[in-house]
């Protein structure tokens, strides 16, 4: 037998990997993500291969929270096919659903472009990282940040504090490298401190069953979670 591991596919799309392969993938994806920022798949791979401590942590936080527990049980997915876009658009301005749809339209993004996990060796943790990815756009909505480089970096800082995922930490640290000095100033003096304060103060954002709260006003949800109003 030439191969060391057997084919144990835990979920569709799962590729089992040895520790050595994970280490090589983590290093390779980090380099490639920096070299070619359009390789979103590399950022995803980096997250999966380095998340072995943070993901169980997140899962436990979810398990110990009634709403989070619910989410783990029901495993909701945020996809264009599961969202009732017409209904969300019809909701009053300022509500989560309306603002989320507005965000998707303004930035021309879709929730369907999130990569499914491949290298996470536990199918519940695979769901956790999938949920984190699908909720990312809602983070943008709650924080009021657009999808340009600056906005993404701010959200990454928030997520880094919230989740502890090394990929977020690296993204937060290295993302600013490509920004102009003027933007860097705004980032450093106003945005990042606010993101960190909010991230620390807020309860775990993965413990919110967003799909059941479309009617809730964004401001009210912010207050409930503990996210400070954006500057």
């Amino acid at each position, binding site marked *: 037998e030439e191969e060391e591991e057997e084919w144990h596919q835990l979920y569709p799309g799962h590729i089992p990997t040895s520790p*050595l*392969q994970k280490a090589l993938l983590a290093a*390779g994806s980090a380099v*490639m993500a920096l070299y070619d920022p359009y390789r979103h798949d590399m950022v995803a791979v980096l997250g999966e291969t380095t998340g072995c401590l943070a993901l169980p942590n997140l899962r436990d936080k979810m398990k110990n929270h009634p709403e989070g527990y619910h989410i783990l049980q029901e495993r909701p997915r945020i996809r264009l096919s599961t969202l009732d876009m017409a209904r969300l658009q019809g909701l009053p301005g300022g509500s989560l659903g309306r603002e989320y749809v507005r965000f998707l339209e303004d930035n021309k993004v879709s929730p369907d472009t999130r990569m499914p996990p491949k290298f996470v060796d536990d199918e519940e943790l695979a769901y956790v990282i999938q949920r984190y990815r699908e909720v990312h756009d809602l983070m943008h909505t709650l924080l009021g940040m657009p999808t340009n480089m600056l906005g993404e970096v701010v959200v990454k800082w928030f997520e880094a504090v919230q989740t502890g995922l090394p990929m977020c930490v690296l993204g937060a640290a290295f993302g600013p490298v490509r920004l102009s000095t003027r933007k860097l100033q705004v980032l450093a003096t106003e945005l990042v401190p606010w993101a960190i304060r909010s991230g620390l103060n807020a309860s775990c954002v993965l413990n919110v069953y967003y799909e059941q709260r479309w009617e809730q006003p964004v401001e009210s949800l912010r207050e409930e979670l503990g996210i400070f109003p954006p500057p």
Partner: protein
Amino acid sequence: VNQVFESVAKKYDVMNDSMTLGIHRIWKDILMHKMNPSPGTLLLDVAGGTGDIAFRFINYVRSMQERRLQRKLKNHQNLSWQEIFESYQKDKFNSLGDSQVVVCDINREMLKVGKQKAQHLGYSEGLSWVLGNAEELPFDNDKFDVYTIAFGIRNVTRIDLALQEAYRVLKPGGRFLCLEFSHVSNPLLSRLYDLYSFQVIPVLGEVIAGDWRSYQYLVESIRQFPPQEELKAMIEDAGFFKVDYENLNFGIVAIHSGFKL
């Protein structure tokens, strides 16, 4: 197999360089030196996709022609201009010396990449691209002087059929050359090679081409391919004579050669 190559076609060359640390270029150079084509050789390169062998063939033949030309010029030093002019008319001096190469591949994407490369690198004469299946070649009998298949035969489902076809399309006196991954007998090296193949190569595939699965397949197909002696026997079964092989890098790669008499 076809799906593997469609996704792989565009990043093929980059992946080859990364996986083999550029050594595949040397292997292909050695193949060309072994072939040592003379002017007027008609070469069929099967599974030649992105043109590596074809371009090397053209370079080789061109440089041979240039040397011939230089030798001719030296010999002509004592002739009059009129006599030199006449001798050029007679020879119709062709930079390739009438050598030609046909690149045949089953995959359209690979041929597309090959044609683009040819254009980019400036190869135009003596080169043609044909879509075809190694198990059933779209050529007449006894057509080619040399048949090559470099890193392609392990992807063929019926290797015996491909070998029979190779025999059929070669002229009597023609040569069969196969460059392919083979088996490493040295136990220590074999383990290191396995480690590298299974641990590193799929990772490279994921990072560079975003495609773990295709490169996992690649590594597995190498292991399943017949070892040197077995392939030699298969080539002999197809009717070839004076079949032998040369190991490169301890058997990581081998060149098999045979003649149609």
